[in-house]
Every structure is written in structure tokens, then in C-alpha cells.
């Protein structure tokens, strides 16, 4: 029997939301079961998602009119290939949730378990909704679900520094959201519509340029803040470093990507409307990306705190993605899209492995963690694979992205960006090699590090699975490309490669 997959699209969003709403109810009865419950919800959602993606791969993009109100008269979900490409990111929750079981049991009192898992589910639902909605205002509301739960997740760890980091994140995040709302409102006032496709169609040449430009700038700035592109990154390092490790993985790997998805959606809209000179914008984007790569790497070099280093590396990697889209060449856009997924995978791997090290030893700086590889060989190996991947050395997942983006730079006749990219990657390697050295080739300074034991299986299995994926995605990197190419074709002024 064939399932009518298209009918299930809204449930990909509704399932995690309902699951989240029920988590505190369950927690009131038995907090112990909230973890498995959240995992079950994630798995059900993932099943729906994967089915939908497979369907799109086969049958192409489709729209779903909520409540039967099609077009601009209601809210439309639009499941195109780009959404189908980023949606499998929710798969990562299927490893992050079990990984966090142990963290939750050790670090949080049972009364908070339900809320913690509810927040994780809400982040996931918000992100899924964000990627599939076809409505500007709906985009904003979904973004708020994700952001709000992210702020709280940062603060879960403690009352002092964590709360302060979360509040900084909240202030900047709220301003960014407000800018998105302002842009939405302006576009609505100008066109009378909120549907992305409809707005694009109605932004004709007779619409005043000034407000359109402001709307564009507001939306783009908003998403650049969410994506933590330098110099709008200031909220990120503290928030991502101080959050509990599973949360850091979610934030760095996934939540930052909402900014990218939003950016792509905005560019799609304005490209279709042809209302803004996009060439200059693309160039600016490319510059921002290049600067992000270099500055993120530069700042990361000075960090001794493992997670802070990873946080800065996120800024670099977002730089790759932004640069890739900014180059506006088919290959570069393919590379950027691939990196959206790959970076999520790799950064999740790294943060979870870092979390495992911190969890077992109680130390979080490189100088304290020296020599931990002897005591925890598997976790350290995962960390090393993650490091090699994120630097973009073959044969790991990170390499292909670098290859494609560099190729795109030459294709677009912007060779300097190609040089910057290739050698920026070397810069990044400097701090990862410090990490590998510290973990593997230096003698332990703390007895607790030397005597640490491997993490329990509930944490180890996700780690090994993720590390294996980093390698496999690199070796079989071609398979997803068939998917991305048509996806980016819609993002670009030119056709696919």
C-alpha cells in the first residue's frame, strides 16, 4: 500500500510539538521515562521525515495548504528539494537525545527532566517547521520556537555564567527576530500578502524600492545574526561553550543553520521578485564569509577551552557556507549546501565527544585534558576523526564541500576567494592539531585524566555512529549530490552545474 506522504507533511511538525507538550505530563508521573519518550517521538518524526524526503526525491517538490486554504489565502507548507536536503538534519536528534540521557540523570534534578526534553523536541519541531513553511510570518513564528528553546537550553547548566550567556544570546536573538518581523511587516504592507511565492510575484517594478531594500536588509541581517556570521557572532562563543554538551551540539550543528536556511529563503524570494540588485549582495556575502572563516579560525587559536574552540570553529564553518552561497556559482552553492549538512554532522560529533571527555574527567581545557586518549581511546578517536573532517581533509565528509566551494570560486572567476578558502582551512588546522596533540601525544597532568574510564554505552554508541558517518559521508559523498544539485538550482541566478 502506498502511503499518501504528502498528507503527512504537517505532522512532521505537529508530532514533535505534541510530544513536547506531553513530556511534562509524563514527567509528572515518572521522570525516568521522559528520555525514552523523547527518543520515541524523535524516531517517529524521523520516520515521517525520511519518508517525505524519499517521496520528494521521487516525485519532486509539492505544497500543502493548511486547512485547505491554498495560495496566499492561508498558510502553505512548501516541501521543495532544499527543504528535503536540510530536513534530514533532524536525524541528528536521534543520536543527541540518547546521548543526553546520562547527562540529564547526572546533572539535573528529576523535576527538570521533562522540561529539558520538551525543549529539545521544541527545537526540533521549530526547525522542521522553519524549513518547510512557505509563509513569511509563519517563518518568524517557527524561528521563535527554536530560538526561545535555545536560549533556555543554554541556561540549563547553571545560574551564573550560563544565565548571563543565555541572556546575551537572548538579547541579540530577540533583536534579530524583531528585524525579521520588521522585514515581514514591510513586505506585507507593500504586497498585502505573506506567502513567499505570492510576495515574490507581487513585488513588481512599481513597488517603491526604498522599503523593499529595508525589508531585504532587515531580513538578511536577522538571518546573519542567527547564523553567527562575523561580526554578528558575538553571542555565539559563550552560549555554545557554556551550554551542556548535547545542547551545544544542537545549537552549533543545527540551530545556527536556521539562519542559513532563512537566508536561502530570502534570497530565493528576492531573486524570484528581481527587486533587489543581488550581485552586490552576493559579493558582500562572499566577503563576509571569507572574513568569518579567517576571524573564526584566528580567534579559535587562542582558546584553551575545548568547547570554546569548537564554538569559534562554528563561526569559521558558517563562513564557508555563506561564502559558498555568496559566490553564486553552481558548484559553490552545491558545496555550501553540502556543508550545511556536513558541518551539522561533524560539529555534533565534536561537541558530543568533547562532552564525553568533560563528563568523564571533569576537565574542559586542553591543558588539563592532556593525554586523555590513553584512558579514553574510543572517544579520543572520535574527536580526532571529527577534527580531520572539519578541517576538510580527505577522505572525510568535510573535504567535498571545500572542493566544491573552491571550484565555485574559480568558476565564478573569483580566484582570491579560492585561495582564501584553501589556506583558511590550513589556519583552522593549526588549532585542531593542537587538540590532537594534547589528547594523544602529551602526558597526562592530572591523575583523574589518566584514570578516566570510557564513557558508558549510551554515550559511546552515538559517538561511534557519528564518527562512522563522518567517514562514510566523505567516501560516498556523491550520493547526496544528486539531491543537492536540483535543490540549489532554485537558489541561484544561474542553473545547476
Amino acid at each position, binding site marked *: 500500500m502506498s502511503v499518501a506522504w504528502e498528507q503527512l507533511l504537517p505532522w512532521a511538525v505537529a508530532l514533535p510539538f505534541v510530544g513536547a507538550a506531553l513530556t511534562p505530563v509524563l514527567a509528572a508521573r515518572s521522570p525516568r521515562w521522559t528520555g525514552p519518550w523523547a527518543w520515541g517521538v524523535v524516531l517517529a518524526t524521523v520516520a515521517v521525515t525520511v519518508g517525505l524526503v524519499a517521496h520528494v526525491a521521487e516525485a519532486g517538490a509539492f505544497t500543502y495548504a493548511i486547512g485547505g486554504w491554498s495560495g496566499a489565502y492561508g498558510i502553505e507548507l512548501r516541501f521543495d528539494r532544499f527543504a528535503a536536503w536540510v530536513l534530514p538534519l533532524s536525524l541528528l536528534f536521534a543520536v543527541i537525545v540518547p546521548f543526553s540521557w546520562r547527562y540529564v540523570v547526572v546533572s539535573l534534578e528529576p523535576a527538570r527532566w521533562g522540561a529539558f526534553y520538551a525543549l529539545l523536541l521544541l527545537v526540533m519541531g521549530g526547525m522542521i517547521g522553519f524549513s518547510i513553511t512557505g509563509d513569511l510570518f509563519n517563518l518568524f513564528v517557527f524561528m521563535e520556537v527554536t530560538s526561545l528553546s535555545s536560549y533556555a537550553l543554554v541556561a540549563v547548566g547553571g545560574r551564573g555564567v550560563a544565565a548571563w550567556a543565555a541572556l546575551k544570546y537572548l538579547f541579540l536573538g530577540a533583536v534579530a527576530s524583531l528585524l525579521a518581523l520588521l522585514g515581514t511587516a514591510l513586505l506585507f504592507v507593500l504586497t498585502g500578502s505573506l506567502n513567499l511565492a505570492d510576495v515574490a510575484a507581487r513585488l513588481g517594478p512599481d513597488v517603491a524600492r526604498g522599503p523593499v531594500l529595508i525589508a531585504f536588509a532587515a531580513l538578511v541581517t536577522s538571518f546573519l545574526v542567527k547564523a553567527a556570521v562575523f561580526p554578528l557572532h558575538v553571542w555565539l562563543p559563550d552560549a555554545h561553550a557554556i551550554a551542556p554538551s548535547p545542547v551545544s551540539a544542537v545549537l552549533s550543528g543545527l540551530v545556527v543553520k536556521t539562519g542559513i536556511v532563512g537566508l536561502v529563503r530570502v534570497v530565493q524570494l528576492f531573486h524570484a521578485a528581481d527587486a533587489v540588485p543581488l550581485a552586490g549582495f552576493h559579493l558582500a556575502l562572499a566577503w563576509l564569509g571569507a572574513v568569518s572563516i579567517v576571524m573564526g579560525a584566528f580567534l579559535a587559536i587562542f582558546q584553551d577551552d575545548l568547547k570554546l574552540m569548537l564554538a569559534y570553529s562554528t563561526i569559521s564553518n558558517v563562513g564557508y557556507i555563506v561564502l559558498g552561497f555568496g559566490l553564486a556559482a553552481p558548484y559553490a552553492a552545491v558545496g555550501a549546501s553540502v556543508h550545511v549538512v556536513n558541518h551539522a554532522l561533524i560539529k555534533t560529533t565534536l561537541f558530543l565527544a568533547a562532552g564525553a571527555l568533560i563528563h568523564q574527567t571533569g576537565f574542559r581545557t586542553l591543558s588539563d585534558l592532556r593525554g586523555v586518549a590513553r584512558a579514553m581511546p574510543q572517544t579520543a578517536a572520535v574527536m580526532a576523526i571529527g577534527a*580531520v573532517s572539519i578541517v576538510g*581533509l*580527505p*577522505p572525510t565528509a568535510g*573535504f*567535498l564541500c*571545500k*572542493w566544491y566551494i*573552491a*571550484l565555485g*570560486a*574559480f*568558476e565564478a572567476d573569483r*580566484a582570491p576567494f*579560492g*585561495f582564501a578558502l*584553501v*589556506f583558511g*582551512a*590550513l589556519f583552522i*588546522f593549526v588549532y585542531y*592539531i593542537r587538540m590532537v*596533540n594534547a589528547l*594523544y*601525544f*602529551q*602526558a597526562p597532568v592530572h591523575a583523574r585524566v589518566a584514570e578516566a574510564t570510557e564513557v558508558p554505552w549510551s554515550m559511546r554508541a552515538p559517538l561511534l555512529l557519528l564518527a562512522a558517518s563522518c567517514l562514510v559521508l566523505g*567516501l*560516498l*559523498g*556523491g*550520493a547526496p*549530490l544528486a539531491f543537492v*544539485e536540483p535543490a540549489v538550482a532554485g537558489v541561484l541566478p544561474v542553473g545547476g*552545474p
Partner: protein
Amino acid sequence: MGVVDPRPLLAPLISFACAGLVFAAGRNAFWRRFWSLSAAAVKLALVLSMLPGTLRGVVYTFDVVAFTPGIGIAFRADAYGMFFALVSSTLWTLTTIYAIGYMRGEPDRSRFFGFFALCVSTTVGVAFAENLLTFFLFYETLTICTYPLVVHAETPEALRAGRVYLTYTLIGGGFVLLGSVMAFDAAGTLTLAQPGILPADAGGATLATIFAALIVGFGVKAAIMPLHGWLPLAMVAPTPVSALLHAVAVVKVGAFGVTRVIYNVFGVELLQDLGFATPLAWLAAFTILAGSAIALTQDHLKRRLAYSTISQLSYIVLGAALLTPFAATAAILHVAHQAFAKITMFFVVGAIQRTTGKTRVSELAGIGARMPWSMAAFTIAALSFVGVPLFAGFVTKWYLSLGALQAGAGVFVGVMLVSSLLNAAYWFPIVHLAYFRRADGGDEGVHEAPPLLLVPILICAAYVLLLGLTTQVPGMPFSVAQVAVERAFAVPAVVP
């Protein structure tokens, strides 16, 4: 004639699987040795099984995955690749035996043997790479896999050497990537299966950038001066590593890359038009002489070997850069000749160090009497390097000189001669010390290296002899090199 066959893929895969099994074996010495040795043997057999086909002109290919048209991972065992793969898998087998003896009692042996196998896996991968992307893939993996071997001792000195090594090689890797990307942008393909892919109309500046990027990138590993700085430092690694990696795998991969760039990316004809190869030839000539001159001043044995390596590698680069069939034959042949002779020397130096604790040239007085077999092997290798007729090194120099004349650059013949003199000047004193001086502490009688070290030494030395004496016998490296040269120049055999 191309034949689809999985063997070019299987060859690197075997070492890869071996590495996994060795890591899994952990502290269990038996399984570690068992997997290392059997993988080495299986791989050697596999490569040898392709040899008859190669001599007939068969090319085995295997496509693994294509990302988009023109970009993918594919393997292809052509004559030159076969040549390189044969050398490395033969030497892997010998070095594994040697290393088992040498590393006795060292810590972290699983890590050592695991990464050792990975290095060989990637070397063979480079040899069989069908395109520049696959080449780069293995090239970079090799960098990563060598790093734990270089810093194996975990001393500050080793860590420093490791850092320098990575800095050099990764920047080199960056250049290779850059060159590959630009080459793809210009040519639309990266295949190494043709005599040149770059179109002549791609623009002089673009072609020059590509050439410079690729040559600098590969030149780092090939230790062309001034890109050689990492090699002497990396000698802190355990001797088997120095032997296999810094006489065979790492540096030869670089030299192999340079030749691939010249023959398969640019092609002889295009390079002759462009004239890019001439500066490279001069650089190589400079490296040959300067490397030898520095080697002369080194007292530390392994450092002297390192500078000698730098000098010898540039024979290959020079041979390739001369763009003539004879020189090409010399370049390809020297991959084998230098490898076997140099590894013999490294083995002997390691054996001396393990048996007597001596690491300097000045301490070697009378060593010939204590370790007669080892020193005999060393002498054979030294004679080969100097280029005494009937030894392997002579064949190289002969063809290289012929090639230089063919190219109308007789000055390089002079370089050959000076180099021979320098080689004699730094090898013969060692031989002299070993045989004609008495040890200060009085004669302690014969005290040879243990069999696990001695046997590989003798096999290698014997093979060096054989390479010189039976050059023309079918199945020896020369025949394979001929097939390879015919492909690159589209000319019939070049036997004078």
C-alpha cells in the same frame, strides 16, 4: 587496453583493513604481527598478479564512485603506477619484518603498526589513482597517517618535528588542492589516464599558476629545496618509519606526484611549448648538489641519510623535468633504485643503533668487524649511490645523462658527475671508518644484528645488486619502466 578489475582498489583496501585489525588487536602481539605480515604478503601477491598483464600493456581500471561527471574516485593500474606500487608493497613486506624486530619493547605498538599499514594503503592508493582528486585524497590521508608515526616518541623534540612536518605538508596539500581545482576548472576533467589534459589555450597565467601550485604542493613532499625543511627533522621517528616513509612512501609520493603532473596533467608536448620545466630542472639540479653538500657536513647518521635522500629525490624530478624519453626512464627507474638502496642504508643504521647504540658517523670506527653482514649491505648501497658501474645507481645516471644530452642540456651531465663525486665523498668515509679503523674500546668480536633485522637488510642489498646486474631481464623494474615511458611519449622502446 583497459580492463575493469577490482584489484587496483583491493590493494589499498587490504592495508586499510589490516590497520583496522591491528588497532583492534590492541596489546595482543600475536595477532598484531599476524595481521601485519599476512596483509603485506597478500598485498604483494595481489600487485604481482597484475604484473604480467601490465607487461603486456594491459591497464586495469576500477571506478568506485563518480560525484559528478569528471569528479570521482577511481583507480587505474597503469605501468607507472604498477611500478610504484610494486616497489612500495615489496618494501612494506620487508619493513614489516624489520619493524617487528626493531620495535620490540616500544610502547604503543598497535598504534604504530596500525598507522604504518594505513600509510602503505595510501601510498598504493596514490600509485593507482586514476585522477588527481583520488590522488589528492590519498596524498592528504598519507600526511595525516604519518603524523602519529613521526611523533611516536612523544618527546618535545618529536612533537616539534611533527608540527614542522604538518606545517610543510599541509601547506603543500593546500597548493595541490588549489592546483587541482584550477586544473579542473580549466580542463573539465582530472584524469591521469591521458598524456596531458590541460588545453593549451587556457591562458599562460592560469597554466603557470596551476603548474606552480602543483609543483610546489608535490615538491614539499619530494623535498625539493627550499621545501625540504621538514625532512631532516622528521628523522626523530623510529628508524623503520624513516626507512619506509622517508625513503619510500612519503617522499616518493611527492616525486611521483611531480612526474604525474609533468606527464599526465600537462603532458610533455604542452610543457615543451610552455617551457615551465626548465626552471624546475635547474631547481632539481641545485637540490642535487646542495643536498649532497650538506650531507657531507652531517655527523648524525640519519641526518646524513636524510640530506642524501633530498639530493637523490631530485634525480627523479630532474629526470622528469628534462622531458625526454631517456630521462623519463631514468626518473622512473630511480624510484626503485633509490628506494631499495636507501632503505638498505636505513635498515643498517637502525640495526647499528639497536645493537650498539651508535648514531653518529664518528662513532663507527671498526663497526665493519663487529657487524660484517650489515656493513657489507651498506657498502653495496653506497656503491650504488655513487654510481659505480654494474650497480643500480649507475643505470639511473647513465640514462639521465643520455636524457640530458637528448634534451640538449649537457650541463646536467656535469651535475651528474659532481654529484657522484659528492656521493663518494660522504659515503666512502663511512665505509673506510667501518673497515679500516679499529674501535677505540678494543675488538669485541662479531656481534651482528638479530635475524629479524638482518634478513630484510640482506634481501634488500641483494636486490640492489640484482637491479644493477640484471637490468634487462624481463619482469625487472626496467621492463615496467619502459612500458610506462612508451605511454608518456608515445614512442617505442628506448633501449639504446
